């Protein structure tokens, strides 16, 4: 499988992976992040919900999940920045026949921690977690979560019943958080054998009990690698922070024009900094047509709008849960893609923004890496 164009980034380059509803596009730049080269579309015409980069153990591997409307979902990898791809005969991620389920989408591909360089995860619809212990060569269903007593009571959110977020712990290989819409946050402390709901303090405004044990429509969870017990969360309603690895959550919604949104991005270095993209909850677009990213520098006690470089005219934009990301450089780059096919980026932690690409298909996911 040959892409029409391909990247050849040098070591030290910045890499952006952009999934869309009609294929994937990749961009690379030097560390200034001033000019970007673009390749794609990869998997033209196929829905790419999830992309990921694995730079562990000397690899330079891109992962992408493609869904063909007729022929189903496949997981692919490339070790040459998309010039060639694996095209497996048999679907690598599939439900065992005894489960009675079949794969609809792969919502999230995640590399495990640096301490386990061959560990990979996939979060899928219907909601389930798959893992690989051989760097993605083979995959298996994580039965500890699939057999959870809550599973029959999870309900599909607007996008379907999906496990959309996987948050490995860089300091503890036995600990992993996942988020399910609508199930909420679940955590394992024993490498996936058992899972506990971790939703204390998270609202479920649509539920008779506003603070149920599980069933919250969590949209995204982000962990700061420098302080792994701190998590930020964008809920269907409300922004939240946990300082105890999800044992309890405190609401931090004060200062945003809407507490509804999809992405949540933790700063790569500073545990007190995070980014959100608030959406008006009915229209699900930037409130009042004003394109704004909001940033906290004090762990959610206050939020400040960031808009330098955004259009002055009305922009009714939507950013999906996996379509905003930070790179790991200094100063941090922040990127997001919109359903209208625009890719924006900031190379100064959100102080100023510019349009990197326009005219893309609707963007589903944006991932950043430093080579």
């Amino acid at each position: 499988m040959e892409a029409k164009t391909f990247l050849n980034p040098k070591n030290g380059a910045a890499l952006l992976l952009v999934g869309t509803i009609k294929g994937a596009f990749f961009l690379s730049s030097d560390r200034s992040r001033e000019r970007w080269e673009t390749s794609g579309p990869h998997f033209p015409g196929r829905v790419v919900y999830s992309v990921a980069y694995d730079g562990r153990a000397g690899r330079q591997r891109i992962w992408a999940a493609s869904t063909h409307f007729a022929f189903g979902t496949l997981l692919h990898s490339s070790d040459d920045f998309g010039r060639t791809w694996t095209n497996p005969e048999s679907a690598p991620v599939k439900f065992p026949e005894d489960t009675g389920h079949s794969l609809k989408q792969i919502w999230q591909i995640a590399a495990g921690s640096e301490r386990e360089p061959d560990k990979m995860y996939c979060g899928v619809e219907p909601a389930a977690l798959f893992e690989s212990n051989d760097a993605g060569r083979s995959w298996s269903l994580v039965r500890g979560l699939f057999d959870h007593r809550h599973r029959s009571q999870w309900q599909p959110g607007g996008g379907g019943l999906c496990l959309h977020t996987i948050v490995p712990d860089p300091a503890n290989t036995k600990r992993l958080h996942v988020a399910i819409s609508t199930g909420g946050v679940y955590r394992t402390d024993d490498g996936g054998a058992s899972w506990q709901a971790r939703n204390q303090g998270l609202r479920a405004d649509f539920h008779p009990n506003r603070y149920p044990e599980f069933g919250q429509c969590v949209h995204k969870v982000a962990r700061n690698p420098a302080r792994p017990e701190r998590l930020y969360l964008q809920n269907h309603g409300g922004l939240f922070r946990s300082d105890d690895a999800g044992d309890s959550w405190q609401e931090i919604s004060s200062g945003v024009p809407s507490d509804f949104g999809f992405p949540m991005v933790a700063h790569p270095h500073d545990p007190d900094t995070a980014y959100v993209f608030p959406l008006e909850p009915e229209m699900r677009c930037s409130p009042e047509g004003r394109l704004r990213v909001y940033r906290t520098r004090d762990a959610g006690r206050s939020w400040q709008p960031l808009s330098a470089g955004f259009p002055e005219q009305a922009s009714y934009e939507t950013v999906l849960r996996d379509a905003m990301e930070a790179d790991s450089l200094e100063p941090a780059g922040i990127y997001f893609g919109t359903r209208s096919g625009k890719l924006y980026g900031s190379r100064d932690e959100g102080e100023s923004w510019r349009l990197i690409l326009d005219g893309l298909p609707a963007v589903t996911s944006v991932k950043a890496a430093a080579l």
Partner: protein
Amino acid sequence: MVFFIPGPLREQTGGRAQVRIDAGAGTLGEALAALWREYPGLRDRMVNEQGEVRQHVNIFIGDENMRDCGGF
């Protein structure tokens, strides 16, 4: 038995638009099993994990859609 392969699936048959499989005169299920032994990449693209033909895949026997004539 001759299978006519649509364009998007020919990457799994070495580019062949028609493939001849010696599958005898059994059921459609037996014929497909023989096809998938020869070209294993076709299986997961035609059916899901539960062995159900994917929603937008149609298999015709002559002019008849298998969905209208008893399935496998």
